[in-house]
């Protein structure tokens, strides 16, 4: 299968989610990357290491702002030019709109919220966890190209060490595609690894009791070299930034270790973290749903347990 993979980039970095999709696409056939916007030429060669045989780049000014519609134009023309059988995306605020616009433009099927991609008898098959991940649905496409959005963080990038040929192209933009404009952009400050990149995540929910209690989690995360995440409830309450939100309307993460503190385990949170290697849950309520899908369930007060655990980890790290 020949596929185009939309490689999203931000501040000079190809995003991990789209590199994960690229690695997967390369394992299923010929994968070509697409890097759109100024700075693309410099970034494009890096895609070769994750399995791209070629990378299409356009640095046109219309592609500078993170807006979907000019990207639909660019990808539609690439599909025509390359005869790609699939166009694959790692889900993000931007990618979702690009994928849906492209599907409508080309009359192509779009499957989204996929946790995996595979081939069955040479045909692309997507796996979508549904109904709060109680069911895995296998989905297919009826025609070409197949458009797919993979859950953020569901697939890990695999460095294979190849190199990619960079091909410049020029997109023609539709009259309506360039009407929307970016007026202002504010970056959110972040320290330590982002939750998508972290091997260890310490996450907090309502059970923390107050925004101040996040400092306990920050100390444990720092000791473990990990990142702090939050549930939707506490993000909505303004306790912690949206960039750290894990779940259906936030990010999907799959660290080696996920320590859930004061998190009840609502389905909308579960779908974002159940792919984690080992899940440790600390909660006062022995009946919290999170105890149904964790590996280590601790019934107790996180305010007591977390600081002690932090001390033990620090002593262990210090002694190494």
């Amino acid at each position: 299968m020949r596929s185009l993979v939309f490689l999203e980039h931000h501040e000079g970095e190809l995003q991990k989610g789209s590199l994960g999709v690229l690695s997967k696409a390369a394992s299923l056939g010929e994968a070509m990357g697409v890097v759109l916007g100024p700075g693309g030429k410099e970034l494009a060669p890096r895609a070769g290491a994750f399995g791209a045989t070629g990378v299409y780049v356009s640095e046109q000014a219309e592609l500078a702002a993170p807006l979907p519609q000019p990207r639909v134009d660019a990808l539609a023309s690439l599909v025509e030019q390359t005869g790609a059988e699939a166009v694959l995306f790692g889900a993000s605020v931007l990618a979702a709109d690009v994928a849906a616009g492209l599907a409508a433009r080309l009359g192509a099927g779009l499957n989204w919220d996929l946790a995996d991609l595979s081939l069955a008898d040479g045909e692309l098959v997507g796996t979508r966890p549904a109904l709060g991940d109680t069911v895995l649905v296998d989905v297919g496409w009826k025609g070409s190209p197949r458009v797919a959005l993979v859950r953020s963080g569901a697939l890990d990038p695999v460095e294979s060490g190849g190199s990619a040929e960079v091909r410049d192209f020029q997109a023609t933009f539709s009259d309506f595609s360039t009407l929307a404009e970016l007026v202002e952009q504010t970056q959110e400050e972040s320290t330590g690894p982002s939750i998508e990149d972290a091997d260890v995540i310490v996450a907090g929910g309502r059970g923390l009791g107050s925004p101040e209690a996040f400092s306990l989690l920050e100390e444990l995360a720092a000791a473990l070299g990990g990142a702090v995440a939050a549930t939707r409830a506490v993000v909505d309450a303004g306790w912690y930034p949206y960039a750290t939100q894990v779940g259906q309307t936030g990010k999907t993460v799959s660290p080696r270790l996920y320590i859930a503190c004061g998190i009840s385990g609502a389905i909308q949170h579960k779908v974002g973290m159940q792919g984690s290697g080992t899940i440790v849950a600390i909660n006062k309520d022995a009946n919290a749903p999170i105890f149904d899908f964790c590996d280590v369930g601790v019934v107790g007060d996180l305010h007591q347990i977390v600081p002690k655990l932090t001390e033990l980890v620090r002593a262990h790290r210090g002694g190494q």
Partner: protein
Amino acid sequence: MKIAVCVKQVPDATVTKRIDPQTKRLDRSGESALNPTDLNAVEEALRVKEAQGGEVVLVSMGPEKAVDALRKALAMGADRAVLVTDEAAAGSDLLGTARALAGALEREAADLVFFGQASSDGDGAVLWAAVADLLRRPVVSQVASLTVEGGSVTGKRQTEHGYDVIRAPLPAVVAVSDAINEPRYPSLKGIMAAKSKPQETLSLADAGVQPDAAGEAGAGTTVLGLGPPPSRGDQVRIEDDGSAAQKIFDLLVERRLL
């Protein structure tokens, strides 16, 4: 200002959702309700109308009983409702749904088209961008605050990296996040008034959609099969008696997670 709001009927939150093993699609036979995040879109439309005057039209696609769900939005204050309902539309995926809604929206020629964030039945999380492409209009999604003035709409939205402020000239398509407002409850007067508000039903043909461009026939995707999710192995349970931190630590060391 003419404002259209795309809304959807979904299974009620109190209904246990299941997938019909025959059709491999969500069983929609039980109680249904208006998709909760669509209420934010209706609320925002009403606020724009209250500030600038005009009309709020609900546009939906679904079975005939979807009219019940539309009534709640009419009770909140929307002026009328248009429902695309057609047996040939059953089994529509993103393509069929987007085409039917775009067809109905073309007839309305609204200045602003609102969508809610995502539907609780798992569909439509990307619908706005597809509809905007078919209508050939600019789109702004995930909008958490909004101003409409001087013939343009400006939306602020949260992304993975921070905040973007995006402006688009009208007519435009806007998808709002559920953080944008607190939807009002219908008043008794509103509930009574809703009963006499105009409700129009359109066939696919009325919406200008060929029968093979919607429903199963027009779908670009297919469901191949269902399976159980992988299970997670044995669980360790710890009741804290003061030693929980030590026990967690020992397990992390044992499993080579430190």
